[in-house]
């Protein structure tokens, strides 16, 4: 009887344990999906915060395509988020009004959309946002993909910093004045839920697509590029093509999320909302590193953990939060680079189906290091 308090959990645990792996996977995904779908009803007050969580998961997953799986660390992926956001806004307004006229009055023209117009605009805008971001990815790719290592990172950072400056100088979209997006033609809770589910669907779609993608030849190819690009090329892989496709996929999903996010906020402008390079742009990397880059679940776990900690502590730190973020980045990068999933893999390799050869692993890192030092001294 003493067990009773914990027994349901244990029972569930035993039941899960008893399932075959396929079933177990279905149960797991089912649980997360169910939690995701029911969240706006169960935790109604947190709808917005959880919607942002899905966006964060999408960020981390898409960053990992290049950063983790392909070894190309981009500092500028956030550019596609902003491009998606702006393309969506232009489509939404442009379908029924003159964009230049609308923005020239700094939003003084108040648009009234019928529900039909609104939803057509939104749907077309989101699709256009994703595809447009993808097109830009191809263009940027031509510029930056010849660059390797740190030059690639700096080049992409340059692109991400240049984009808002250019859009800010573009009067057609209101320049730095930004755009107020059309108002949702329904109740507030309905609106929250619509955008919540869009975020949820996009995050799940990204996850599912990447899970499939990594299991194909494509996954192996981009891993090969990460491990040794010269050799991969020597083996006859069209590395440029893989890099381009990988980046376009990331850009597509980022574009979708940007399109939705812009509408969720309701007011967009280039520097702070559409291209937040030092916030979202850095968050996506930190989340990915925290969770463990180069794994499928790492970014998801990293994003969940990061966003939760951030939601709970961030708003109460009145100015110090940025110092904390900087320290977190340094600590993660310098001391904990393998991330949570990477650490788990090291600590409990058998969980991941990795068999450990006792004879080899008996020679620990320390021994290897000692031997290296000896041989160096011998020189």
């Amino acid at each position, binding site marked *: 009887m003493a067990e009773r308090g914990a027994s349901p959990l244990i029972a569930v645990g035993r039941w899960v344990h008893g399932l075959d792996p396929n079933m177990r996977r279905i149960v797991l995904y089912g649980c997360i999906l169910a939690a995701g779908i029911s969240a706006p009803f169960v935790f109604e007050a947190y709808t917005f915060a959880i919607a942002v969580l899905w966006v964060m998961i999408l960020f981390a997953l898409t960053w990992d395509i290049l950063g983790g799986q392909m070894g190309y660390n981009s500092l500028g992926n956030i550019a596609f988020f902003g491009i998606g956001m702006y393309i969506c806004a232009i489509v939404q307004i442009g379908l029924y009004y003159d964009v230049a006229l609308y923005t020239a009055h700094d939003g003084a023209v108040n648009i009234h959309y019928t529900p039909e117009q609104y939803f057509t605009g939104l749907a077309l805008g989101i699709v256009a946002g994703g595809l447009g971001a993808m097109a830009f990815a191809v263009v940027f790719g031509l510029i930056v993909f010849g660059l390797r290592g740190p030059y690639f990172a700096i080049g992409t950072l340059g692109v991400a910093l240049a984009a808002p400056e250019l859009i800010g100088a573009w009067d057609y979209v209101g320049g730095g004045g930004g755009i107020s997006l059309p108002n949702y033609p329904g109740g507030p809770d309905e609106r929250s839920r619509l955008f919540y589910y869009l975020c949820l669907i996009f995050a799940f779609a990204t996850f599912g697509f990447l899970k499939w993608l990594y299991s194909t030849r494509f996954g192996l190819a981009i891993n090969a590029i990460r491990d040794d690009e010269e050799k991969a090329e020597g083996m006859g892989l069209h590395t440029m093509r893989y890099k381009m496709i990988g980046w376009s996929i990331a850009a597509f999903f980022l574009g979708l999320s940007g399109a939705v996010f812009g509408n969720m906020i309701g007011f967009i402008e280039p520097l702070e909302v559409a291209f937040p390079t030092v916030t979202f742009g850095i968050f996506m990397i930190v989340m990915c590193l925290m969770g463990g880059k180069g794994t499928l679940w790492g970014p998801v776990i990293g994003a969940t953990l990061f966003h939760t900690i951030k939601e709970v502590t961030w708003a109460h730190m009145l100015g110090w939060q940025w110092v904390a973020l900087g320290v977190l980045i340094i600590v993660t990068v310098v001391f904990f680079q393998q991330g949570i999933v990477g650490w788990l893999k090291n600590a409990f390799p*058998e969980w991941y189906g990795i068999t450990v050869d006792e004879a080899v692993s008996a020679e620990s890192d320390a021994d290897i290091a000692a031997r290296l030092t000896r041989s160096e001294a011998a020189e």
Partner: protein
Amino acid sequence: MTMWHRMIPKLVLGIAAIALVAAAPAGAKVEGDTIIIGSAISFSGKYSTNGIHASNGYNLGVKRINEMGGVTVGGKQYKLEIKYYDDESTPLRTAQLFERLIKQDKIKFLLGPYSSATTKAAAKITEKYKIPMVEAEGASRSLFTQGYKYLFAVLSTSEQYLASSIALAAEIAKKNGRDPSDVKVAMAFENDPFSLDVRAGVIDDINKFNMKIVVDDKLPRDLSDMSATLIKVKALNPDLLLISGHSKGAATAARQIKELQIDVPLIAVTHCEAAKIVDKFGASTNDFLCPTQWAETLSYTGKYFGSAADFDKLFKAEYEGYKNVPYQAAQATAAVLVWKEAFERANSFDTEKLRDSLAETNMQTFYGNIKFDQTGKNIAKPMVLRQIQDGKFNVVAPTKWASHPVNWPRKAQ
């Protein structure tokens, strides 16, 4: 591929549990004998100078009202309290935090953030949930063309900032026997919602007088230099130079105008007081024209703080380091006073009743008269133009409020 799937749900569950415990709703709209008003304001980031001015203003208002016995609703006395978040000077964060204030913290009464961009983001949220917000720091006139019903602003809107300096330039031209349409104007505006809105207002006024625009530059938000623009100004000899770029723009402009020895006869700059340019650049800022929402020398009085001069004295005593009280602080205090009277008039905490009660506001304060029109902006208070004369801010326009004649032409230092 066996064990680790078991690990994931545990992790996710654990995280969810932590999240739920830690983020439990903190406080409701009225707790015991305290009314909680929510606001997200810039404590960090590029607007934090003014964000802190504004929060000082809010706090002083709350302190004063609580000292005078608080707010009486339904025969019961309540104290006021403000729950703050830091919006990091970005509208992205503002939108998230206002959602949080309304949905998670269940706050039903709001004070606005600092700057037009963040107010635009906040208004989208408050309108959506039909929660009234009194704002004191978002002047963009496009806030009041959207048909918002729950937004009330105590300040004058952006097109009025530099309007009187243009009128002044026209007046001087006429006095000197020139036609106002001969006046050449140079403009340098920051590329952000507030300044662009000021610019839109300025262009309307310039067109009214048929003046010529010779320089029309937009300054990027993180620009540390505007000498390229000023060199242009130097070559083209305008009669009037207009600059708007929050505190940062004012300080950069003051420095480089001095260094490049720009001798335009009239120079108008927004946010002079908040940027403390007199302290920093001394005599070289003499004869700058500075539009202000409020000045301590104006003859306004109200029942909470007495006259404008009394407020000025009290504020300086309360907060160290102010030589001039920036209007950003004064209007923030006024917003708190508006809430107080609205609560008492509505005699209820119902948001609809409060909205109607706010709409009926018609009060006299140290900050000026406050009366909202249909769109929620204050139409009972003018903006005044001050000139820095020997380190002092003296009101020179409009004529009704002027205490000193304008110095013209400005002498380059």
